[in-house]
């Protein structure tokens, strides 16, 4: 005799206990600490901070540990924590020109003021598995150089001085008022570029990478040049209302990418280069580059280009770039749907019966 299934609550508790045990793994192997993750899986931590929209290495490292290394789950943990925090206001705009550079490259000029600084990069490594890495061997200290006092001006600024590139602006209407906040206002299309950039900055790296890639393969083709990629520490300052002047809150590491794109000009505008902008917390170079490509593609309307490709479609890109939203909705298919499925089943059976297709049903 069938009895309605009971005991969901106990099953959930037990599943969570099993999860905790699996997370720990073999207890004979030393437990990994959030501190170790923060120090040794830095790029993972950077990604979780970026897409989690919260600059906190410790929490991001803890989230990675708690999520068993599932990055999207870690991003989700950070977001759910972030949502409970009070918001005090906006920081002053970051002065990335004053960045303390650890890496800075330009693909558009061989040499330039401030120089090319490779920094810690995978770029010219041969991707050969390094078996020595797992033997606990000492790491040879890296070479150092004195910090240069020379300014490191933005490459695109140099082009701007000659009028060869459009001036940098947040919005086409040059509106310098408070930026929008996509965490406080529901998204309404069309979206201004400030909010668009916010969404892309927390957007999924893989999704933006694929879209950026698609623009290089002819879907919204506008050949990009990596005008500049810079990674380093910048000061964050804030104006508390009771003081009335900016105070420095501390430093954060960011990656900034400015793409230079072709633009043939129109009747009203002479030919000039255009911009795409990408930024992330920490060192997320691939993300910042992809973001810059997608930002540029999404400016199609503003620049009078035909919108023909997915990367140019604001509603498509922005509605689907958030991996916490995407994973939630895809994974909700695991939840029971038997009520809806039952209604479909009933309809399919009825229609099959009417068509005489289902002999077994008809015989009943």
């Amino acid at each position, binding site marked *: 005799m069938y009895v309605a299934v009971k005991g*969901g609550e106990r099953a959930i508790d037990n599943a969570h206990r099993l999860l905790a045990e699996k997370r720990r793994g073999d207890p004979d192997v030393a437990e990994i600490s959030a501190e170790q993750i923060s120090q040794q899986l830095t790029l993972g931590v950077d990604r979780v901070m970026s897409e989690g929209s919260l600059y906190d290495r410790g929490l991001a490292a803890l989230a990675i540990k708690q999520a068993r290394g599932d990055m999207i789950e870690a991003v989700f943990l950070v977001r759910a924590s972030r949502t*409970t925090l009070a918001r005090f206001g906006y920081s002053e705009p970051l002065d990335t020109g004053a960045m303390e550079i650890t890496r800075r490259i330009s693909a558009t000029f061989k040499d330039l003021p401030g120089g090319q600084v490779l920094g810690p990069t995978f770029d010219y490594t041969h991707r050969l598995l390094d078996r020595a890495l797992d033997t606990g061997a000492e790491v040879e200290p890296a070479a150092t150089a004195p910090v240069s006092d020379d300014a490191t001006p933005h490459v695109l600024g140099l082009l701007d001085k000659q009028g060869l590139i459009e001036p940098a602006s947040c919005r086409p209407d040059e509106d310098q008022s408070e930026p929008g906040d996509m965490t406080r206002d529901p998204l309404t299309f069309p979206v201004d570029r400030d909010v668009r950039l916010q969404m892309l900055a927390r957007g999924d790296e893989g999704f933006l990478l694929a879209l950026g890639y698609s623009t290089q393969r002819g879907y919204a083709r506008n050949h990009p040049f990596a005008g500049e990629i810079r990674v380093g520490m910048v000061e964050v300052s804030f104006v508390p209302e009771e003081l009335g002047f900016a105070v420095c809150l501390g430093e954060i590491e960011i990656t900034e990418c400015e793409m230079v794109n072709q633009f043939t000009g129109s009747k009203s505008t002479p030919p000039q280069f255009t911009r795409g902008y990408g930024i992330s917390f920490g060192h997320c170079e691939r993300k910042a580059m992809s973001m810059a490509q997608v930002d540029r593609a999404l400016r199609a309307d503003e620049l009078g280009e035909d919108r023909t490709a997915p990367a140019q479609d604001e*509603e498509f890109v922005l509605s689907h770039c958030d991996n916490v939203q995407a994973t939630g909705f895809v994974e*909700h298919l695991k*939840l029971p*749907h038997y*009520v809806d499925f*039952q*209604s479909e089943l009933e*309809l399919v059976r009825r229609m099959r019966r009417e068509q005489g297709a289902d002999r077994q049903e008809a015989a009943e």
Partner: protein
Amino acid sequence: MTIEPAAARDTGYNFAYLNEQTKKMIRRALLKAVAIPGYQVPFASREMPMPYGWGTGGVQVTASVLTPEDVLKVIDQGADDTTNAVSIRKFFKRTAGVATTEATAEASVIQTRHRIPEQKLTSDQILVYQVPIPEPLRFLEPRETETRKMHAFEDYGLMHVKLYEDISQHGHIATTYAYPVKVEGRYVMDPSPTPKFDNPKMDNCAALQLFGAGREKRIYALPPFTSVVSLDFEDHPFEVQAWEHPCELCGARDTYLDEVIVDDEGGRMFVCSDTDYCASRRQAVSEAAE
């Protein structure tokens, strides 16, 4: 009585998790939604500690209407003990400390996914729906910029054409759940993925019905005693599902039934999807027998 009484809550969070500013923002959206029945009000949906698509909209609405005196019931697929219903009920026990129940009649706030309870709701109750896709026109027109215009112009021709095409192709309207309704003769609304069997219960309902879509950032509402009409045609009137068999547990003939596969020979039985309704009917029978 099956009420599990109110208990101490986790004071690390505000009552019912959300901070008061957020609740105020959501209540404003709710008031607007009640003022314009069936209209989708955008709201600044927050990230919740459960995934999008798992009831974050419903949870935010419930959190915003809940008071310490409330008695909460949570169902999924009509049942109180499905995993997600258990999880959400636990969340509110922990963050709000409110009393909970499985009995429809005892609850003052009922959060639901995919069903409306079989028992008639009263004017003392609020029914909160979890909504995945609030836009009834979404599968006909994927662009929000377009669908908002269509609602503004009351341009629902596309929906009628879709329903008509169903009839001409299949002989039936092939929508069995999330069946579109017209609210107070104005807005076409998605009743959330409840089976169309439940649509008539929405019409002229004494309870306040609130709909929350977290990922899509929309809230809409049906104030008590609102007219809710399922779309149909004169020659193809709306009708609900019917079963040839009664519930095999309680014998009810007027409820929505789940199909349960009982062996691997294709054997199956049908039982009420509303577990509280089914259990209370069986209890009444056994009490009468004593």
